[in-house]
């Protein structure tokens, strides 16, 4: 809007607003995710984090505001179109293809990324470069041992890894991790953290999380969302020492007792 | 215009019958989230019982109606417990199949007992004949149907809005987990709603026997019709079923008057259009989509 001529790489959300009926769920959201960013979004339940994720990924259309990718306005693009442009998300509740194995998941994701999804002949499992790439990703996430088991029977932590594997297979530029550790028992959370650590450095990542431990280990920048608006944004130490944020979390904790 | 009045009366009467038959299905589909293709069986049982009591045993019409409804409820209860509760968690397609299986068995049983012919119910004297309402001569039966339908609608409205059962019902339709957490005995609510729906279906089948004659193939013949009424009205919504039943009843009747060659095509086209724009139905509370 101001005279920015050089296209800034990365995702920018400018003044996003969203309301359902009379209920405002997002108000004047501004976000900047550059390549290599490690940004975390925190906030109490009901703050609108899921709405935010929806607005960024194209699942929800904003009432006003814009979303830019590398300076190009993508506000009108649907979710599949944004995925093709490089904006990928993982799901908070594991949304996997139950009868597929991890290998089949990754294979499918690679096939789609390579725009081979319309091919009606040729065995999907027999494309050598697809299989090699799939294998590589599975090894990277240490899933190669379970790669040919039906995802349904895998422990929950490993299922979350498959979500991340899918994201990797799509070679995103901007990745939105929606509560990657949600529901994962403490005994398995290390594998999630390791997986996130191993993500490419030039990838711009926005992580929505409740687990403060994970947030402070992961993030170089933290954004606090409350009741649909951004309360504040800063480095982990700034946020940790911000009295309003402390109030938000401690205050809530006190009320629960 | 006399034609308009004819269409209105016939259409509204037809709509009332559709409403009574379908409302139970709408509630249980919205509540239990079960695709129940066997709902028409209750209408059939009600009508056949009345027929049998009157024809075979010479029972009076009014008593036969009460007994017919009672018998349907008696049959519906074990069906609910033994069958419908079991299929509760299954996928859409499995439920479709299972209830189709039930329909087939019911039709086979009815064929064995009553054969394949259509049976008509002998109405008592006061329901026969016509009455002059000034503008037109209207069959008494039509008036009776319209009045019954309105009575049912009002009673249902009262039950749902004013009684505890109704409040529990609405809560359970809205959000079952929350209702259960509030201590509402949801399975008890379901059972009562199911039985109420079956009773109403029986009543509708009986009152509608003139327009929709009872026969062994009844549940299949009117299956699509009932399902569409529910879908267009919105599953789980009594108001929705009422409106869609009247709307579709009038449209179908008007279609038959004005463009008989197009027959039921118009009816299906209209329902398709409505569903295309409002997949959850006109008043959809909780759709399966």
């Amino acid at each position, binding site marked *: 809007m101001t005279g920015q001529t050089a296209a800034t790489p990365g995702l920018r959300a400018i003044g996003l607003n969203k309301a359902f009926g009379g209920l405002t769920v997002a108000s004047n959201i501004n976000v900047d995710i550059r390549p290599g960013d490690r940004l975390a979004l925190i906030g109490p339940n009901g703050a609108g984090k899921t709405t935010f994720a929806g607005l960024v990924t194209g699942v929800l259309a904003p009432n006003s505001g814009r979303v830019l990718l590398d300076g190009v306005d993508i506000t009108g693009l649907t979710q599949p179109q944004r995925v093709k442009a490089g904006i990928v998300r993982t799901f908070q509740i594991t949304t996997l293809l139950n009868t597929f194995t991890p290998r089949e998941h990754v294979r499918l994701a690679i096939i789609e990324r390579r725009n081979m999804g*319309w091919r009606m002949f040729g065995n999907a499992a027999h494309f050598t470069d697809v299989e090699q790439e799939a294998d590589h990703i599975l090894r990277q996430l240490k899933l190669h041992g379970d790669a040919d088991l039906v995802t349904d029977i895998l422990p929950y932590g490993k299922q979350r890894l498959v979500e991340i594997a899918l994201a990797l297979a799509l070679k995103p530029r901007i990745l939105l991790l929606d509560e990657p550790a949600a529901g994962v028992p403490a005994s398995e959370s290390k594998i999630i953290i390791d997986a996130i650590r191993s993500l490419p450095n030039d990838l711009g990542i926005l992580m929505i999380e409740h687990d403060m431990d994970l947030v402070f280990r992961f993030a170089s920048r933290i954004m606090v969302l409350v009741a649909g608006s951004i309360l504040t944004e800063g480095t982990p130490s700034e946020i940790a020492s911000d009295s309003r944020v402390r109030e938000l979390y401690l205050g809530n904790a006190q009320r629960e007792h | 215009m006399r034609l308009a009045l004819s269409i209105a009366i016939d259409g509204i009467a037809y709509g009332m019958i559709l409403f009574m038959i379908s409302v139970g299905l709408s509630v249980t589909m919205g509540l239990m989230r079960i695709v129940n293709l066997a709902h028409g069986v209750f209408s059939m049982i009600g009508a056949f019982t009345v027929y049998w009591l009157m024809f075979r045993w010479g029972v009076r019409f009014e008593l036969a109606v009460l007994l017919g409804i009672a018998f349907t409820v008696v049959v519906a209860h074990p069906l609910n417990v033994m069958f419908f509760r079991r299929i509760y968690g299954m996928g859409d397609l499995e439920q479709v199949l299972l209830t189709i299986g039930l329909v*087939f*068995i019911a039709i086979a*049983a009815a064929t064995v007992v009553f054969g394949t012919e259509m049976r008509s119910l002998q109405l008592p004297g006061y329901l026969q004949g016509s009455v002059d309402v000034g503008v037109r001569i209207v069959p008494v039966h039509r008036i009776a149907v319209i009045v019954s339908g309105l009575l049912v609608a009002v009673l249902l409205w009262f039950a749902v809005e004013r009684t505890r059962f109704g409040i529990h019902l609405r809560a359970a339709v809205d959000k079952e987990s929350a209702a259960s957490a509030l201590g509402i005995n949801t399975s008890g609510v379901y059972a009562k709603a199911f039985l109420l729906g079956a009773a109403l279906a029986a009543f509708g089948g009986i009152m509608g026997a003139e327009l929709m004659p009872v026969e062994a193939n009844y549940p299949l013949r009117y299956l699509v019709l009932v399902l569409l009424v529910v879908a267009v009205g919105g599953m789980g919504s009594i108001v929705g079923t009422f409106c869609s039943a009247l709307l579709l009843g009038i449209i179908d009747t008007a279609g038959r008057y004005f463009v008989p060659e197009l027959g*039921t095509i118009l009816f299906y086209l209209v329902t398709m259009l409505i569903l295309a724009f409002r997949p959850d139905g006109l008043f959809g509370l909780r759709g*399966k989509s």
Partner: protein
Amino acid sequence: MLSNTRKFSWVVDLLLLAAAISVYFIFPESLGLGTRILVMVLFVLSLDLALGYAGIPTLGHAIVFGVGAYAAGLFAVHVTSEPLAGLMVGAVAGATIALISGLLLLRTNHLTLVMISVAMAQIAFEIANQASAVTGGVDGLGGIEMQPLLGLFEFDFYGKTAYLYSVAVVALLFLVMRFFVTSPFVLSCQGIREQRERMEALGVRVYWRLVAMYTISGVIGGIAGALNAQTTQYVSLEVLGFTLSAEAVVMLILGGVGRLYGAILGTVIFMMVHHVASGIDPANWLFVIGAMIIVVVFVAPKGVLSLFFGPGKSA
């Protein structure tokens, strides 16, 4: 491990073909039934593509069968009764109706989709009923006399040519489908069946994939309808009926949804039980099938095949 399974299934394919051909010699009086079974197998295979692989819950699939049947029948009566040309007409007709209806149908989901699929088939039924000058209405379309197949094989009274013709058509199309269902396209449809949202998050425009798959199933279904018209030399209104759609779904689920062999197995079992049971007592046929459906869904919800081979993604 994978290659062993594949070799194994080629053996099964050959055995099936051998069985079909041997029926010709062993049961020469039952070729009419055999042909009907083959036609249904093809129809249920087409349903399997839409319902089993892509998860489109249609209870109105008779529409592609019926449109294919009427198209081929009318083509034979008014244009030429060359059989293979008739199959082509059936294929195109089935594809066209599937495409047109699919564009609307696939905007919806779940129960609404089921409802609209039923409504559409009913509309087609009513149109065929009303247009009795063209279609013969309730009396059906008769007077179909097929030219000799390939100019050599006459359609004889005993149904011998019709039977082998059907075997050839079904075997060929089955072969094509065996290759087709391993393709990336079908893999993506299976993904859509499992989790639509997930596939959108992979960058897939779900609607168009489903329209494509539905159209392809319309091709096969249309050919099945055409085959029906040609081998029975008659088209009845029931080719568009709800009963046909419902029975096809039952057959598919009986055998195993999402597996080609499941479609074959379910159809054969259903039709044989129907044949035997209605021979004994037609009224009790409904008891039998009703009970059978309920037992199967409770005991083996993924179909008979799953009892032996486990719930699969595909076969």
